């Protein structure tokens, strides 16, 4: 195997943050090089340096033995290095075909500036077929589901025929089925000699694809080892600086709590048809399903974020009307959305403002904010959730992906909701933080909160839920108890 890329002594600082300190890294052809590290460890930053998004303060990059300078994304593209970014980088108003081939459209031979629409569509169709994605190339990206969008990003990178492909948490927005598809593609790429960097917080994925693993911590390179399943525990310990005994902390299941939320009918034509749904105090209900099963739609309808035609629900036995998120929040529901950038965070505002946003009225007297109270609350959750931020005033957009996710969790914890809907709550957060979140959930349910956890990660669903509901086509197609639950059963209901 030849060495494709070698990065040496990379340093990068942001105002107030030393993101990378003397990091070295290499990529060989035909390998999958996994990168592990806590949220904010500097993984994405290192890859952004490699792909020209950021310039490093100092350090060297070699490509196929030659020193190269990469100052902008174009430079990397020219060398044949491409990346699937952790944060979506698509154009919502452009079509799938245009998104995939932007900057590299098939052009008319004579009038070089004219795009050949037919060729573009044909090439897109062929490409989508190779990853078994059945969408019309003319669809606007804003009309796709999150998972479909992620697949479009993958298609775009594949279309570049690069020699090095960086995948920064490609599976965070995917479900089991697409993940399998992705792994198939990765194996093909490997065989054809492409070097792949694979960043993920879903450690169980590594066993399917990883050849080598590099661990980073706090902006430092820690070590690189050949992957081997037995070393995983060791790696995690290196990564988080302590050993984690159990992946899914057990919680004390209160048998027969009171019904806290009862949905009798929730209908939205062509999208949702829910007949019966109950959530008990102190319970975690997991909702599983494939992409497009309608889980997010269920959560949004319940929260009043989308209009539904029929909605008969009771909270703590009382009939309530929820017309908008404000009503839902007033009745004690909280909703952690699946796409933190789109509708989770106000990225331009400070960490503090984001944390207290849903809870402003409780830190206000006559509409005036009690600054001390607000600071105290924010600091408390920053400590509880171990959020890495230089200070309370830091803008949310400057935090790493995982820490952003934690801010949203903090927002709803701070609101002290009775019913919490977590849509993909651990998307993109590191193993240590995941366990913190799980422990938090446990603490919440012990305090009597009911949690609805939507997740595409089977182990998480199996490990955390007291009860699991499976959705398909906007309906519940099965219910399984914790002790009877197996992967096979859930998948059976999901595709039945």
């Amino acid at each position: 195997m030849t060495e494709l890329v070698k990065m040496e002594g990379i340093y990068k600082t942001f105002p107030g943050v030393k993101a990378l300190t003397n990091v070295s890294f290499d990529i060989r052809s035909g390998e999958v090089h996994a990168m592990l590290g806590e949220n904010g460890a500097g993984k994405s930053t290192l890859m952004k340096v490699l792909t020209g998004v950021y310039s490093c303060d100092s350090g060297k990059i070699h490509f196929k033995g030659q020193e190269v300078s990469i100052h902008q994304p174009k430079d990397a593209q020219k060398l044949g290095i491409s990346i699937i970014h952790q944060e979506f980088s698509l154009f919502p108003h452009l079509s799938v075909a245009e998104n995939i081939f932007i900057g590299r459209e098939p052009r008319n031979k004579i009038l070089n500036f004219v795009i050949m629409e037919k060729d573009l569509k044909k090439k897109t169709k062929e490409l989508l077929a190779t990853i078994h994605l059945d969408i019309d190339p003319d669809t606007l990206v804003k009309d796709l589901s999150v998972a479909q969008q992620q697949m479009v990003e993958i298609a775009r990178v594949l279309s570049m025929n690069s020699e090095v492909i960086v995948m920064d948490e490609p599976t965070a927005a995917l479900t089991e089925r697409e993940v399998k598809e992705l792994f198939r593609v990765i194996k093909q790429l490997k065989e054809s000699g492409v070097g792949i960097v694979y960043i993920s917080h879903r450690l169980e994925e590594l066993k399917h694809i990883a050849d080598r693993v590099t661990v980073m911590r706090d902006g430092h390179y820690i070590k690189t080892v050949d992957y081997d399943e037995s070393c995983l525990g060791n790696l995690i310990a290196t990564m988080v600086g302590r050993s984690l005994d159990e992946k899914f902390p057990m919680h004390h299941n209160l048998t027969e709590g009171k019904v806290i939320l009862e949905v009798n009918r929730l209908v939205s034509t062509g999208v949702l048809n829910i007949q019966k749904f109950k959530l008990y105090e102190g319970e975690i209900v997991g909702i599983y399903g494939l992409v497009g099963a309608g889980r997010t739609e269920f959560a949004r309808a319940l929260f009043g974020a989308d209009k539904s035609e029929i909605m008969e629900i009771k909270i703590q036995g009382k009939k309530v009307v929820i017309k908008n998120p404000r009503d839902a929040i007033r009745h004690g529901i909280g909703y952690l959305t699946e796409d933190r950038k789109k509708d989770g965070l106000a990225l331009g505002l400070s960490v503090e403002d984001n944390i207290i946003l849903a809870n402003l009225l409780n830190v206000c007297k006559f509409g005036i904010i009690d600054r001390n109270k607000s600071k105290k609350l924010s600091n408390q959750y920053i400590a509880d959730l171990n959020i890495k931020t230089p200070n309370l005033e830091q803008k949310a957009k400057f935090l790493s992906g995982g820490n952003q996710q934690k801010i949203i969790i903090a927002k709803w914890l701070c609101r002290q909701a009775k019913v919490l809907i977590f849509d993909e709550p651990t998307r993109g957060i590191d193993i240590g933080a995941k366990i913190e979140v799980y422990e938090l959930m446990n603490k919440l349910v012990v305090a009597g909160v009911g949690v609805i956890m939507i997740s595409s990660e089977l182990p998480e669903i199996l490990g955390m839920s007291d009860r699991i509901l499976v959705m398909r086509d906007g309906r519940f197609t099965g219910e399984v108890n914790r002790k009877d639950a197996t992967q096979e059963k859930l998948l059976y209901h999901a595709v039945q």
Partner: protein
Amino acid sequence: MSVETSKVSFGKAGLFNKKIYNELGSFTGLLIIGFVFSITTDNFFTVNNLLTVALQTAYICLLAIAETYVIITSGIDLSVGSILAVSGVVCGKLLLAGFGIPLSMLAAILVGGLCGAINGLAISRMGIAPFIATLGMMSIGRGVANVITDSLPVSGLPEDFFFIGGGTVLGIIPVPVIIMLLVAMLFAFILNRTAFGKYVFALGSNEDAARLSGVNIGMTTIGVYAVSGLLSGLVGVMLAARLVSAQAQAGLGYELDAIAASIIGGVSPMGGSGTILGTIIGAFIMGVLRNGLNLLNVNAFWQQIAIGVVIIVAVYIDKLRRK
């Protein structure tokens, strides 16, 4: 056309847009306004008047096409009115200096393009917000036009020059209308069928992503504002031709009309979407409204009120239909 068809793509519906259906809403609005005036006045629905409206609106259409490009990138161009004045007076002075009509026009339009490119440079290289950069140019351009002419009309231009701004072809179709249609087709083609057009959309849809995809943000921005400047320059030359006299005061306040026409025609003020056809319809909604109210002899002050109300209502109806 029923609502169910909303998801059907109309295939290759000409150069204007892939989905012409989107424009049906504002087009219906235009038809309704036209219909009302046809009934309430004797003279609205006559060939003569309709051609007059087309002529009056052609100038704003051209400026609105410029704004469409700019607004799709999520920018704004406040300087079109001033650039227009600069190009107009430059053209006038060159004509007086004896450079001949084609050469003077070309040079004047290029001066407009240059002013636009400077806007683009300030925005992309200096990182100035489009509102400020073009507001600056609005002030500078007006000042330059005044300095060039000492704010006196540039008159004594050759009468042949009139043809560009007010002449007719086949004895009836105004030249500005023909110019406008040709320009509209060209710029619709560029927007929808060329790489530059896609970059314009990409820039307005998600600038970060565009940068990460290797789109040359700087050149696209400069290009868009240069286009806006060129079109403004063209309009400046045409307006000067129509009066056979160039004024430093020409086009004062036209930027608001042009921007309004684009947005009424469905260009998203947040960027990322819009069509040339829609923009032209938007310009005609405003033009027909002004013409019709004049024909109705409505008091000038009530006209202001009516125009404000109709603009809002027209956009609202279009909004409802899109849902």
